[in-house]
């Protein structure tokens, strides 16, 4: 990518709103094992991208690399056209809510917030519908409520890139759909770029502009989802897409010999 292209990115996402993200040939190893292989990914400002894939394929690792929690061995990571993510613009929401048990709900949301913005914490807590639980200890909340607090804690920093690592994995079906609607609403009003890791193909299709499939550390599918929002899960188009993605995941086009697929979107980098 040349300098000009970077600048266009930076201009396209001025100050507020989502951040642009691009990964070029990211490699990551744990010891001998290669966990991420040659990851290329370009995400436009404000885009909602879902990452799916089997357990252990490297989804969390990818997210942690983007969040700056993990180093990588080769490649480059650009955030709004500048190398290295600005950590105050990126927030990650972990699969386990990771609330501090010794801080009350509101103090958890306000973690790391400058004192003069403490009131924002209450605003965001109201947005996720938990204002009246602000003085409770996290231990007193249900799993879904804890996740909502964790979401509020991430959002209060007005991140331009929000990374979600299976945030709804542990929730029941009804609460999941509620949380999905909440996340979609917040994404639409705040305009951040969102990267959601999920096991649930339906969830990916319901929320994302693009669904990226990772297999064995490499991106093997990058599917645009053009359904109008809000997306009804019952629709025929929805069902067709879901079926296609599921088939793709269950029957990879690799030969029995185990030759890896070439990344489908390798042209995307140019």
């Amino acid at each position, binding site marked *: 990518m040349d300098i000009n292209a970077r600048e266009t990115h930076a201009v396209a996402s001025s100050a507020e709103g989502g951040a642009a993200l691009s990964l070029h040939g990211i490699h990551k190893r744990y010891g001998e094992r290669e966990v991420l292989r040659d990851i290329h990914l370009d995400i436009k400002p404000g885009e909602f991208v879902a990452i799916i894939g089997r357990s252990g394929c490297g989804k969390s690792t990818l997210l942690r690399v983007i969040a700056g929690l993990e180093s990588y061995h080769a490649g480059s990571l650009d955030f709004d056209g500048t190398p290295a993510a600005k950590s105050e613009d990126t927030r990650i929401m972990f699969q386990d809510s990771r609330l*501090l048990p010794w801080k009350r709900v509101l103090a958890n949301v306000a973690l790391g917030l400058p004192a003069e913005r403490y009131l924002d914490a209450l605003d965001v807590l109201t947005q996720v519908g938990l204002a009246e639980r602000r003085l409770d200890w996290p231990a007193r909340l249900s799993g879904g409520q804890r996740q909502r607090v964790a979401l509020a804690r991430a959002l209060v920093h007005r991140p331009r890139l929000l990374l979600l690592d299976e945030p709804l994995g542990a929730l029941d079906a009804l609460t999941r759909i509620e949380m999905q609607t909440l996340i979609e609403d917040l994404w639409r009003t705040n305009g951040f770029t969102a990267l959601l890791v999920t096991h649930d193909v339906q969830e990916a299709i319901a929320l994302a502009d693009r669904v990226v499939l990772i297999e064995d550390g490499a991106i093997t599918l990058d599917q645009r989802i053009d359904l109008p929002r809000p997306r009804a899960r019952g629709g025929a188009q929805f069902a067709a897409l879901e079926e296609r993605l599921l088939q793709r995941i269950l029957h990879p086009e690799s030969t029995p010999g185990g030759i890896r697929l070439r990344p489908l979107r390798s042209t995307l980098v140019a």
Partner: protein
Amino acid sequence: MSKEGTHQIGQRLLPWLPPLGLIILWQIAAQAGWLSSRVLPAPWDIARAAWKLSASGELWQHVAVSTRRALAGFAIGGSAGLLLGLATGTSRRLEILLDTSLQMVRNIPPLALIPLVILWFGIDEAAKLFLVAIGVFFPVYLNTFHGIRSVDPALIEMAKSYGLSGWRLYRDVILPGATASILVGVRFSVGLMWVILIVAETISASSGIGYMTMNAREFLQTDIVLVGIILYALLGKLADLAARGLERFWLRWHPGYQN
């Protein structure tokens, strides 16, 4: 009063029944002359002795002296243990530098130091403070170290990625995460504090509860000896209650401490 209520009060009183029964039996046995008052004076006589001692103010003077020693020794040893535990828990380098030596010293029972301490400090105040401080130091040190090391790394990672570092990370995440373990150390050492002080005071002192009992022994005043023993029990219980109060306050977020 409802049936439920009566039942509850009964439950509350039940644990007090055996000691009460024992005291009554003891009183009867003493009055009947089955127990020599040199061996075990009647409860009533002990109560009278306690009353006389406290009316003259002598008792309170000894209690005050002993309490001051216990608290001063605890403050010195406890804060040293806390600070060193925080230091070695936080910094690998300091751990490598200090931990082996501390582990070696830990294997010496504090009371084994008594002859040496008497040689160093005589039967001075400093001797007792030193013994209590040494005894209290290790439980606090070990539990602080362990507490810091066992703070959930996932929480630390989260806090760092939310912009916390340095003192704020320490105050908001590491210290609170270690509190439960530190308080276990405090509770343990509060018990140890009295044990060590009792021994130190009976061996060498010119005031304090230990001195009072040893003095009484020389004059065969078994009742006063027993008053001293009961006092130690009460003070130990009081110290434990205080430590538990700290737990209830500092760990009020913890599901295990919520009523």
